[in-house]
């Protein structure tokens, strides 16, 4: 974290009642982050359609503060929706490294989780966790949009558990 927030736990440790301040800071920062998770949509295959459906009006992701960003520079989360082919592995890594911190990864669908129905293929990476550290796995082939909403809610719980003090 930045210059100010890195020193905040030390400062709060020195002050009386500092842990309360730290908890407040944690709560505020986590609230701000989880209520505006902006995913970079990485739709690769059929799961992309379900992801698009969850952004659209029927399942409405915007009510959670989630709306898609086309560029990794503006995104908190990358949703890997679909089969990861070996040829696509390098672009995925490049794009992930171009995302600013804090960044999260959500593996959407069987193919992103473990290679899915194409596990034995010569051209498919057996799960995106072979390339990136995944935070949330959403199972399904394809998972329903409600499942993706649930996945983002689980990510929000994970963000809630983040602490400044490490």
């Amino acid at each position, binding site marked *: 974290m*930045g210059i100010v927030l890195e020193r905040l736990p030390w400062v709060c440790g020195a002050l009386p009642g500092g842990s309360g301040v730290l908890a407040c800071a944690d709560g505020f920062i986590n609230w701000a982050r989880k209520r505006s998770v902006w995913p970079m949509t990485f739709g690769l295959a059929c799961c992309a359609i379900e992801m698009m459906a969850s952004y659209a009006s029927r399942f409405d992701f915007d009510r959670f503060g989630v709306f898609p960003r086309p560029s990794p*520079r503006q995104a908190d989360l990358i949703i890997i929706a679909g089969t990861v082919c070996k040829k696509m592995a*390098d*672009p995925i890594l490049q794009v992930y*490294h171009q995302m*600013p911190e*804090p960044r999260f990864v959500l593996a959407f669908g069987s193919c992103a989780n473990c290679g899915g129905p194409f596990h034995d293929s010569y051209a498919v990476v057996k799960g995106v966790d072979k390339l990136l550290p995944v935070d949330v796995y959403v199972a399904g082939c394809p998972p329903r949009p409600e499942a993706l909403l649930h996945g983002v809610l689980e990510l929000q719980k994970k963000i809630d558990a983040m602490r400044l003090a490490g």
Partner: protein
Amino acid sequence: MTTGALAVYVFALCAVAFAAVAMIAGWLLRPRVEDSLKRTTYECGITPTGTSRVKLNIRFYVFALLFVLFDVEVFFVYPWAVTARDAGPAALLEMMIFLGVLFAGLVYAWGKGALQWDQDYGHRP
């Protein structure tokens, strides 16, 4: 220093401070993680190829040029507007001549097609 001038300086200072505080606060608060690939140019995950020079349509330049012209014209009208009542009919006539000349320029630009946004690409059978 009159109160009028002081107000302008304070306003300018606030404008600069608004931007500066936002950027400095961001610099102090945001996470700092060094990643060798993070500063690479984004081109959908691949190494960027080709030049980044883009050919833009000339219409943007023409519209901007005309805008600046008439914006400066309005800038000159403002001081006249606050003193017009005291200055009398001669000042009114002078301003009308000024506006008339610039209006003639606008009509000329219009007639020459400078205000045309879309081009006629011709009918395809």
